[in-house]
């Protein structure tokens, strides 16, 4: 159904504003048009600037005309109601599709479960940041006396009060997600979804009742769950982040096993709330992050009372006393020799990594390939698996950052591409993130190690400085602890390819600079930017000392 152009207007080709195309270009275009017409049973030509065509295209009406009468009950079934899954489902519904979300939380070995929303909302980012805030407030109370606040009460922390308040907030978020799905007409089913054959899933609810659903397309957004050690006593006596945020009793003296950001963040806020915390680390801290900064993160925690047992792994956990909390004995072996140590703790928190939930959802029945080693799903640049009608978003993806905003963005764009409204792909480059340890670490772009590997040391200029936040001066807190570092590519106008900040409000600081890096921030642009005074962020506008100069970065004053 080719539309004819209005009289007096030249038939537009592909890009408006180009001058009259050459004869080769016209020939190429003619060939392409012929190909399209001959290669498809139905071809619809529409003008990109015609609002009627655009609307018909976006609402999916054109798509529906082109498709066969649908053999499936749903246009899209999303397995997993977390950050990625919900974002994708909502967007697909907005575009007029018939969508279902299957979300089900298999209880942890300790029996913990939660509502709709996924890891971030229930047992991740949200409760983590709130508990981190609780710990920061404890520190603020200590600082407050230096600022003139006088009170005679001894300040202590009530775990149950904090947890109840946080769980109430999470409950309102769960409810909010259910509302927003219902408002958009998305069918939400609280059942465990698994593939049984092509285009068909079996959904099993809490009571074991099974229902079958079919769909044209599927999105796997099943996320991950904490890994266990595989040693005696781990599942029976240890807890993980799945259990920590709703623990009905204070964990007491805690051993945190692991060196991931989960381990360090949890150890950090538990210590900040006044608990006796030990971290057992097999090798390095924060694998994948800039190691210079990672060590500073650990060292700050150590200076503030967190004990570190480096180069040890637990081999056995035994229960000495039952209780809430009880008493556990942990036996650990050195990774470097025959040394064995023992320790007694109220709680052992395992944070050694997370495993993808891809092994028990019937992927083998429809031939979706996964990485056998880690369970992750490899996808192409449009999040498509090796089975064309099956896509994946979020933490299950191979080689992509495991972050909520990444999953949300990928899910939304995927829904738009699937339903014809766009062809925009998710940009996984230079994604900012922050580790909310007691001293926060925000970063965007490359670590110094990665930059050196990719660009070679001689092509990089690293600017850095220590700094002392003004608020810390009167409070008498550490000088020469907070740290700022940027890595510049000398071969590309000193482009900032790595941004690192260790200090308070690191997340807030990093967000702005991430946008600047997306715009192609260079050292010169940074120097031309006037700082805001007095802030921590302003140090990035006055960076002078380079690593290559060998000059010291310790602060003297102001």
């Amino acid at each position, binding site marked *: 159904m080719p539309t004819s152009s209005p009289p007096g207007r030249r038939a537009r080709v592909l890009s408006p504003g180009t001058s009259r195309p050459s004869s080769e270009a016209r020939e190429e275009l003619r060939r392409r048009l012929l190909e399209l017409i001959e290669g498809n049973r139905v071809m619809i030509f529409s003008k990109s600037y015609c609002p009627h065509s655009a609307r018909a295209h976006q609402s999916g009406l054109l798509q529906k005309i082109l498709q066969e009468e649908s053999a499936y009950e749903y246009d899209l079934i999303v397995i997993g109601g977390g950050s990625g899954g919900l974002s994708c489902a909502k967007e697909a519904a907005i575009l007029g599709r018939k969508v279902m979300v299957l979300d089900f939380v298999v209880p942890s070995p300790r029996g913990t479960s939660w509502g709709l929303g996924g890891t971030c909302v229930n047992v991740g980012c949200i409760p983590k940041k709130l508990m981190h805030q609780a710990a920061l407030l404890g520190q603020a109370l200590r600082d407050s006396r230096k600022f003139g606040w006088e009170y005679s009460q001894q300040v202590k922390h009530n775990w149950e009060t904090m947890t109840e308040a946080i769980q109430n907030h999470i*409950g309102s978020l769960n409810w909010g997600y259910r509302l927003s799905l219902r408002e958009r007409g998305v069918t939400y089913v609280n059942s465990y979804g698994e593939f049984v054959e092509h285009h068909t899933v079996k959904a099993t609810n809490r009571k074991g009742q099974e229902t079958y659903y079919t769909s044209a397309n599927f999105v796997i957004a099943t996320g991950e769950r904490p890994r266990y050690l595989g040693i005696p006593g781990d599942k029976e006596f240890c807890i993980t982040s799945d259990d920590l945020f709703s623990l009905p009793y204070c964990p007491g003296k805690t051993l945190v096993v692991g060196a991931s950001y989960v381990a360090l963040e949890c150890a950090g806020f538990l210590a900040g709330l006044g608990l006796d915390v030990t971290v057992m680390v097999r090798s390095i801290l924060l694998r994948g992050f800039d190691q210079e900064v990672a060590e500073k993160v650990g060292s700050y925690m150590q200076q503030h009372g967190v004990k570190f047992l480096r180069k040890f792994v637990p081999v056995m956990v035994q229960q000495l006393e039952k209780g809430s909390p009880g008493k556990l004995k942990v036996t650990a072996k050195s990774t470097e020799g025959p040394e064995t140590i023992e320790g007694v703790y109220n709680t052992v928190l395992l944070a050694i990594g997370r495993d993808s939930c891809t092994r028990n959802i019937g992927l083998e029945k429809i031939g979706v390939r996964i990485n056998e080693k880690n369970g992750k799903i490899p996808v192409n640049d449009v999040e498509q698996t090796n089975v064309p009608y099956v896509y994946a978003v979020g933490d299950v993806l191979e080689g992509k950052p495991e972050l909520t905003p990444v999953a949300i963005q990928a899910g939304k764009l995927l829904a738009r591409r699937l339903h014809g409204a766009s062809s925009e792909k998710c940009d996984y480059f230079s994604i900012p993130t922050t580790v909310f340890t007691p001293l926060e670490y925000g970063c965007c772009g490359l670590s110094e190690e990665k930059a050196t590997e990719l660009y070679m040391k001689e092509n990089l200029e690293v600017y850095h400085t220590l700094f002392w936040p003004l608020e810390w001066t009167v409070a008498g807190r550490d000088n020469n602890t907070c740290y700022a570092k940027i890595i510049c590519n000398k071969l590309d106008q000193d482009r900032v390819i790595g941004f690192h900040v260790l200090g308070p409000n690191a997340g807030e600081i990093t967000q702005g600079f991430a946008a600047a890096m997306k715009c192609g921030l260079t050292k010169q642009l940074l120097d031309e930017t006037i700082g805001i005074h007095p802030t921590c962020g302003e140090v990035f506008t006055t960076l002078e000392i380079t690593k290559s100069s060998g000059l010291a970065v310790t602060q003297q004053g102001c």
Partner: protein
Amino acid sequence: MAAYQEVCVCGFEEFNQAVEQHEGKRIFALFVGSKDTEGNSWCPLCTKAEPVIREGLKSASQECVFIYCQVGDKPYWRDPNNDFRKKLNVTSVPTLLKYGTPKKLVDAECRQANLVEMLFCED
């Protein structure tokens, strides 16, 4: 169709008494702007929402108590320090909620039958 017991109260004190009286039971509460002597509420959205909610009540799957609470006159409601706002976190009318849970619908949400049904239904 389940049996529900309706309790009509006016003001914060009466509301709390009703909650105490029915402790242990499943309690739904609807907060509306108070009605005048002719039976008209100063809150038009409340008037519109009421029939939708009463219809939705019929689908409450198990026995429950439905507290119909008139909050007070408009000036009282507008006071940012009124007891409903400060002590119950009810900040607009109409509000429909399941007491003791995060389940809540506010304003125009109270008029949407599918959302009301979701609130009354048991998980």
